[in-house]
């Protein structure tokens, strides 16, 4: 699946580069060199992969129950909101190490509460969760803007919409001299936890059963309403952690554009992984290559970063379109059957 997607991306890029007047081979060469032959390229791949693992996992978890969580972007933002509130207000008042733990918990609560809104509306009233979870993204983005342009703006920032920098206690440690931070480890831990919950616990069995056959689950005594809210809350909490890992691991402050569409990309990461937590690791890495390549192209050729979305659309279309060939086998038969054919 992923290798097919990669081939496709290379093929489409070929036409794409020609269309915008770039020599394709030169572009491939630069991207390949920048990503795989430099130390920073590898680091950047792992850094960008971290939030994508969280958001992909968040979408995949809800999808295991056949629920669409399109709101990872907003849950990401509400996670950054909740943790930044802790970082700004409890700075220096907690014993060592407690601050970052509290931020971690608050990011989960912030994202989780935001995620449970569409979950509750779906469970209680049957409101379409796709639309509500998506619309909440716009609300969350406006809320962050309100904070950054209003009460949380750093007075010494020359009017930039940023908060003050967090104290060192509120920052995740990096690996040695690299930009890779502890968020990556947390992401792997959460992949393991979700995989374990889904396949080794009764709760996970209920989630998967409800996804496969809600009627059977209901007869088996599963409280689908509670489960829906719970899964959405958990999904939101994981998306909130993507925000935690980005802010505490890279930026050390709240600012605009911390998420360059990581929440939306989570949908594609989950789809390519067929909603399997372990698959999320690989598809997050794959999408990270797309992000970093786009950055290289932005620097080298001045192409806008929004072309990532174009690629995501094409990849998702192709992944969807080729699914039929995994379910059905192509057989080439004579159109007019001869006597003796069945």
């Amino acid at each position: 699946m992923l290798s097919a997607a990669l081939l496709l991306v290379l093929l489409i890029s070929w036409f794409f580069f020609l269309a915008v007047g770039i020599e394709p081979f030169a572009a491939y060469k630069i991207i390949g060199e920048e990503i795989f032959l430099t130390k920073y390229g590898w680091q950047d791949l792992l850094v960008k992969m971290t939030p994508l693992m969280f958001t992909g996992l968040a979408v995949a978890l809800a999808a295991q129950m056949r629920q669409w969580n399109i709101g990872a972007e907003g849950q990401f933002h509400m996670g950054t909101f909740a943790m930044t509130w802790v970082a700004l207000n409890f700075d220096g008042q907690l014993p060592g190490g407690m601050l970052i733990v509290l931020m971690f918990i608050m990011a989960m609560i912030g994202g989780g509460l935001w995620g449970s809104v569409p979950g509750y509306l779906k469970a209680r009233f049957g409101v379409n969760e796709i639309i509500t979870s998506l619309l909440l993204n716009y609300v969350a983005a406006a809320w962050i803007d309100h904070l950054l342009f209003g009460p949380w703006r750093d007075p010494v920032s020359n009017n930039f919409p940023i908060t003050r920098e967090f104290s060192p206690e509120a920052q995740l440690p990096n690996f040695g001299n690299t930009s890779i931070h502890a968020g990556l480890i947390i992401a792997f831990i959460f992949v393991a936890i979700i995989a374990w919950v889904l396949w080794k616990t009764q709760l996970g069995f209920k989630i998967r059963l409800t996804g496969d056959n809600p009627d059977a689950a209901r007869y088996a005594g599963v409280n689908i309403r509670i489960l829906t809210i719970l899964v959405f809350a958990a999904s939101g909490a994981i998306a909130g952690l993507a925000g935690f890992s980005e802010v505490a691991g890279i930026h050390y402050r709240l600012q605009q554009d911390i998420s360059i569409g990581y929440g939306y990309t989570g949908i594609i990461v989950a789809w390519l992984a067929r909603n399997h937590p372990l698959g999320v690791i690989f598809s997050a890495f794959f999408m990270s290559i797309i992000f970093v390549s786009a950055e290289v192209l932005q620097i080298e050729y001045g192409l806008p970063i929004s072309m990532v979305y174009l690629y995501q659309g094409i990849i998702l279309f192709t992944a969807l379109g080729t699914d039929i060939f995994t379910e059905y086998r192509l057989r080439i038969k004579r159109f007019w059957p001869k006597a003796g054919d069945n």
Partner: protein
Amino acid sequence: MEFFIQILIAAVVMGTPLLFATLGGVISERAGVINLGMEGLMLVGALVAFVVMLNTENYFYAVAAAALASGLVSIIHGVVCLMLRASQIASGLALTFFGTGLSGLFGDKLTGETVEPLSRIPIPGLHAIPVLGPVLFNHDVLVYFSYICVGLSWWLLYKTRLGLNIRSMGEAPEVCDSLGLSVMGYRFFALIVGGMLVGIGGAYFPLALTPFWVDGITGGRGWIAVALVIFAFWDPVKALGGAYLFGLALALELRLQVLGIEMSPYFLKMLPFVLTILVLTLVTIRNNRRGIQVMPAALGKVFFRGEKH
């Protein structure tokens, strides 16, 4: 009173792109095809309209090109979810990504360019009616065209054989198939016509609302239109009311400060989205309570000939 009328005028203007998009959604969903790619289609329409407008300075070409481009892009959605039988929801999301990326990529160089916005043409006689005149009959051509589209969509869906067939595709495609109607053909038709209307809705942004290019010019209105299709009970005439109600919310966003109400502009930005969620919830509760099923029965369901249903 004057202020009140100003708000209503703005409501109609802000509601017009929503109206086009909602009508497009109604037509394709009546045939059983969910289109979650409306935001992307609107962006494609907006971009194409803006580019054509910059080059030709002809409004008709701009709108026609926007409709054509969105219709063409809708075909991708159709191929993936109708012919290749993928999930309509996922395919629609892919369409949104695609349109967002396309408009971002090719619009990047256009940021800051401006076009001459559509001018208002009062309808002789009608515009002199108190209140109704200025609110409804003193607008640009596209607003009038949206009125016509409401009438045409209603006529098409309820008064023609074609419309009856389209609606049947959304209720019982297997029956239509057994009657010898092409499910694929009718669904493609509804999807493309719907997509064209959505594209015209997108074109309204650069041609009338914000006559310059900004990235993400539609600002999530496509998603509000997705909800409006449900709010309008899949009916073109009710789409009119729904679109103007939300137009009113968007107009208030711009004018509440004039009333002296102190509010963070970012809270006002949230207003239409929060309102959409509230209204969607209320409509869903109401339908549950009355036990009515207004949604096309086969909406979003994959149909393939020769398969048992």
